[in-house]
């Protein structure tokens, strides 16, 4: 009787597993066709498991584990559609991918001690870490995608509009300051910034309505930069934090300082 029950249970389990496997294969197929919902369904099945693995691999550091999981999410989002057709065990594939992300983070950490160049950079990294720990992977992905979309839209602006727009909204300069820097009239600066805003608004509305293809899977690879050059602090070319010593040393060879004036004769 017990043996029969075990057999039935085993068969049932096999059936369930088979059903799960076929369901996963179906989801993978959909993912390979670009179905975003299918990705999240698949990811959701292993998210808790992968989160625990991240915690283990990141030495029980919750912040790092959360960061690793977010990165793994993005990487999976990026890579899964390409490999979905050949994957037979999605859990094993995602586990390996997540493990690789954790190992990459450890390597970055070792390099980071030497690599971080400024306090500002550290502050930015801290901010990013905090932001990522506070948000869920899904919202992190959405935020990341939105950020990239905005950056791409700004980068796609023609130079004549991009420069004043960046100076206004990123470097927070006044219209007058921008006009002086770019040798334009203030009215012209205002006009250009307004044009840039209109173009960006149109593009972002399309994105938010899901009408354009500005999405991570097409544009972001794990090596693509998440910031643009103009987001760097204004330094070389814009502001120079080191006054040139050679220029300071430049001087006229005028006759004399007072101590060698002919006054020694006249005074005595």
């Amino acid at each position, binding site marked *: 009787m017990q043996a029969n029950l075990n057999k039935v249970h085993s068969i049932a389990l096999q059936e369930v597993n088979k059903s799960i496997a076929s369901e996963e294969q179906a989801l993978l197929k959909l993912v390979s066709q670009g179905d975003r919902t299918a990705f999240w369904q698949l990811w959701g099945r292993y998210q808790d498991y992968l989160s625990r693995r991240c915690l283990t691999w990141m030495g029980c550091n919750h912040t790092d584990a959360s960061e690793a999981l977010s990165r793994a999410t993005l990487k999976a989002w990026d890579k899964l559609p390409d490999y979905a057709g050949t994957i037979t065990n999605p859990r094993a594939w995602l586990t390996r991918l997540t493990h690789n992300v954790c190992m990459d983070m450890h390597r970055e950490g070792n390099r980071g001690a030497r690599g971080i160049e400024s306090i500002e950079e550290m502050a930015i990294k801290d901010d990013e870490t905090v932001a990522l720990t506070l948000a869920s992977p899904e919202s992190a992905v959405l935020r990341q995608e939105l950020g990239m979309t905005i950056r791409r839209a700004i980068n796609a602006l023609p130079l004549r509009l991009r420069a004043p727009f960046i100076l206004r909204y990123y470097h927070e300069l006044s219209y007058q*300051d921008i006009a*002086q*820097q*770019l*040798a334009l009239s203030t009215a012209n600066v205002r006009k250009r910034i307004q044009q840039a805003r209109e173009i960006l608004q149109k593009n972002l509305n399309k994105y938010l309505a899901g009408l354009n293809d500005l999405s991570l899977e097409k544009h972001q690879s794990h090596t693509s930069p998440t910031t643009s050059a103009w987001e760097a602090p*204004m330094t070389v*070319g*814009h*502001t*120079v*934090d*080191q*006054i*040139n*010593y*050679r*220029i*300071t*040393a*430049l*001087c*006229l*060879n*005028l*006759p*004399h*300082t*007072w*101590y*060698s*004036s*002919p*006054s*020694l*004769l*006249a*005074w*005595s």
Partner: protein
Amino acid sequence: MFKSATHMVQLTQPTGVELNAYLILDNKITRQEIELKTLSNYVQQHPQGWKKRLEVAELLYAIGRWEQAVDEYRQVLKRQPHCINVRLQLGKMLHLMAREAEAIEVYESALFLSRNVATRHHITGLIESCRQHYQAAVKTLESAASLEPDNVAHWLALGQAYLEIESPVSVQAFDTILKLNPDDIVALSHSYNALMAVGHFQEAGRRVSRALELAPDDVRVLKQMAAHRVYIGLVSGEEGKQTRQMILGVLQLAPNAADAFELFAYYHIFRGELEKGVAMLQKFTEKHPNSPSGWYHYARCLFHTGSYQLAAEVILKAYTLYQNDCEIYRTLCEILPAAGRLEELQPLVEEMLQHFPQRWSVWATAGRVLVESFNDIERGCNVSAKGTQLQPQLAEPWFRHGRVLALAGRHPEAVEALEQGWQLLPEEGHYLQSAQAAVWLGESYQVLGD
């Protein structure tokens, strides 16, 4: 560490006036005309580019064609408005070319671009210097240096501003650079002047020797060393030969520098070859009739050798050519009374006070001339007292003021001022100053029957 050598270039202003400037170059310029022609052709073919144009501007700057360099720098800025260092370079050149209003405009545009607080203070200091508000310049440059104490450019600019107001604190600014970079040739060279000004002759000599070890081809250092040797009388025997070699080295590096010829002239004069020395400077003025420095040095030499009338003619030529150097005014104050040309001197004294109110030595000189030559005792004493107010911690203004008071017959006050100066003398290396002051004190004590 800053080890690039100083070079000298001759600048010709639109009026034809010839001046010399010291500039620091990384590389020696060779085949400059060919290089300039090649670059200019390229720029003509690609007028919208800016990198080669910048090279053209820098080459023109290095060879002393500053009028053209200014135009090219402006063109670069039209294409690259964000380049602050180009603006600072342009501003400094315009300032030295006595185009202060344009320099201020350029500095203000650089100030606007800069977001670094210390840099902004530094640029504000440069603007104040253009306006000849040196006290204000010192304050803002001090702020820049306190915000970025490791930035030698702030300390250098601060030291230069202190020199403009003849303040002994300049020594500290250059010392700070030398603490950061002990082999900084520019600071070693500047500190020579600053130390000489406060009477630290031995330390000044040590500094210039060190600079010469580091940069034997640096024209300013070589000139300072040669001057130092002439100054302490190393003009005969083996030492004299070495001094001569040094002067010839300076002349080779700076064939258009009037002060190098003056050195050679005094080398001869101190050897007893008076006519040879004077003739040397006369020849220089014939060759460079538009060089105010040439006329100035010739006038000094004539004055020292007793040719007062000719010296007066010559120093007036220097003044006609250039009115931006207080040393020319001060020399007028020495020579014109000796030549009996007081009527011409009177307006020049007022002009001098108006143009250089920040310099204590100008007030002291004017005070003496007013007392001694114009018998204007009350005003003369007040004017020379102003010098002690400007630099109360420096011995020399007190000595000079004391002497003016003595010349005015106010010996009790003179003794007080001279003793005050005596208290302020540096601990060592002040022999010349103290000897002079001792004589003056002795004279006043004698009058007072002490």
